[in-house]
């Protein structure tokens, strides 16, 4: 978090808040990167929706995502087996942890625990799904921001 040396606490608080919003605005997002979290799998067997935690986790903080698996026409896919992989394509390394689906929260909605990002930037989250329609896979992009 941005810190100011001046002992003006309200000033610093307001400045930090607005700074966070506007500094993001002077950054350029990675070009042409599709960060949609609602995607069809490669073979079109499933529609997968990823849901990040409500508040963005800090760098190196362990956290959980939710994943919803449905057929292309929107029927939830129960008891799917989902393998999680990923990494940073620009840096040539994988995830710092081995996340996995720990339980099915509701019909077709699963909890991925053990997610962690060790730095800001572009990360891929790759899911291999095995369900009633067969095996398929999908890759999501997410841009992890600091702060």
């Amino acid at each position, binding site marked *: 978090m941005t810190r100011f040396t001046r002992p003006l606490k309200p000033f610093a608080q307001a*400045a930090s808040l*607005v700074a966070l919003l506007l500094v993001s605005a*002077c950054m350029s997002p990675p070009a042409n990167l599709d960060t949609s979290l609602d995607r069809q799998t490669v073979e079109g067997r499933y529609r997968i929706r990823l849901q990040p935690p409500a508040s963005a986790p800090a760098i190196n903080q362990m956290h959980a995502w939710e994943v919803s698996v449905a057929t292309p026409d929107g029927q939830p896919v129960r008891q799917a087996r989902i393998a999680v992989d990923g990494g940073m394509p620009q840096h040539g390394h994988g995830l710092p942890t081995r996340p996995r689906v720990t339980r099915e929260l509701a019909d077709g909605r699963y909890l991925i625990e053990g997610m962690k990002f060790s730095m800001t930037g572009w990360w891929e989250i790759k899911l291999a799904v095995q369900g009633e329609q067969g095996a398929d896979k999908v890759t999501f992009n997410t841009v992890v921001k600091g702060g």
Partner: protein
Amino acid sequence: MGRSTRLLLAGSLAVLLLCGFSFNRTPLRDRWSGEELKLLASMQLDALPPAPADASNRFERSPAAAALGRKLFHDARLSANGQVSCATCHAADRQFQDGVPVGKGVGTGTRRSMPIIATTHSPWKFWDGRKDSLWSQALGPLEDGAEHATTRVHVSRLVRQHHRDEYEAVFGRLPDMAAWPADAGPLGTPEQRRAWATLPASVQAEVNRVFANVGKAIAAYERSVSYGASRFDRYVQATLAGDAQGQQLLSPAEVRGLRAFIGPGQCATCHNGPLFTDQHFHNTGVPQRDPGRPDLGRAGAIAALSRDEFNCFGPHSDADKTRGCEELRFLVDEADPALKGAFKTPSLRNVALRPPYMHAGQLPSLQAVVAHYVASPAATVGHSELAREGHVHVERQPIRLSEAQLRDLVSFLEALSGPVIDPLR
């Protein structure tokens, strides 16, 4: 003008400064883009969050445990020859390291002694991350034949003899040791291992408990040791505050080096955050110290970590083993090819004060380190993550720096030096 309006205006002004504008003030010598400023702000020491709590050590915040831990840390009696303490290789007046390529205790080790400062922020200890807590880490060297070369029974006896009151004030009564052998441990000499094997499991558990508590006390001490602000930190504060005078804290060469660090040098890829480390493991093709006996790094540590009786899942861990111990529960797969020959990204704080470099002290100077990254040699074990000229990585570009940039980069690394804060000293 209302208070909230004033705050909003003040905030907007700060933002404009952050984005590189300045009004009727002394112009800043060094201009940084908004993205760069955000990156710099994330690397200053003030951005370091409080150290995460180690649920496996319920004594880690106990001042009495830390005071005992400091004594144990400096107690050379806890070694086979009575001459090696933790401080032998982690000297408080030498950045908590020893300045030699590989550690020298009772024997000679195979890796560089790591500075223990601020390591409580890392989920994994040692160059290969084979320990998952500071207290468990502290136990390793005590029974390593090249380091203290002692045993857990011997250590327990010494605690009773020399530190009994302080130990019992924190951890409760020491067990009766009258029937114990003089020296025994599962990792010692054949004789020590035989003596250990003859002990009933209940006695082994009693010994292990005292031994684990020794580690927990040492961890409570080590946890208190931290880094103080460097010139880099004060420069970033000045820059964020729009203080032109304060930017003089770094020389133009150091600022050019900083630009190379976060730019074409790609250093901030892994050396990120306020400790200048992603706390992760990477293979960067660092030459093997002994090519005949290649060091597998992280790949060689996963199995030992998983079965370590002093890990977070173990009987002496204070953590909730079903919901806690997340790092172990989601531990990477040993077969992951990226782990082969991968070593932990070290913090770069105070890095200029502790040559030689890399996991076995292979490189004598920061110049040699920077030159290594530019050369990006192929790894002798596993695959280097670095892109090489002629072997262009799909996404990653080779590190290209001029001779002048190399010099500037080294200058910048010297600006990361600051005090070591050791409150119990």
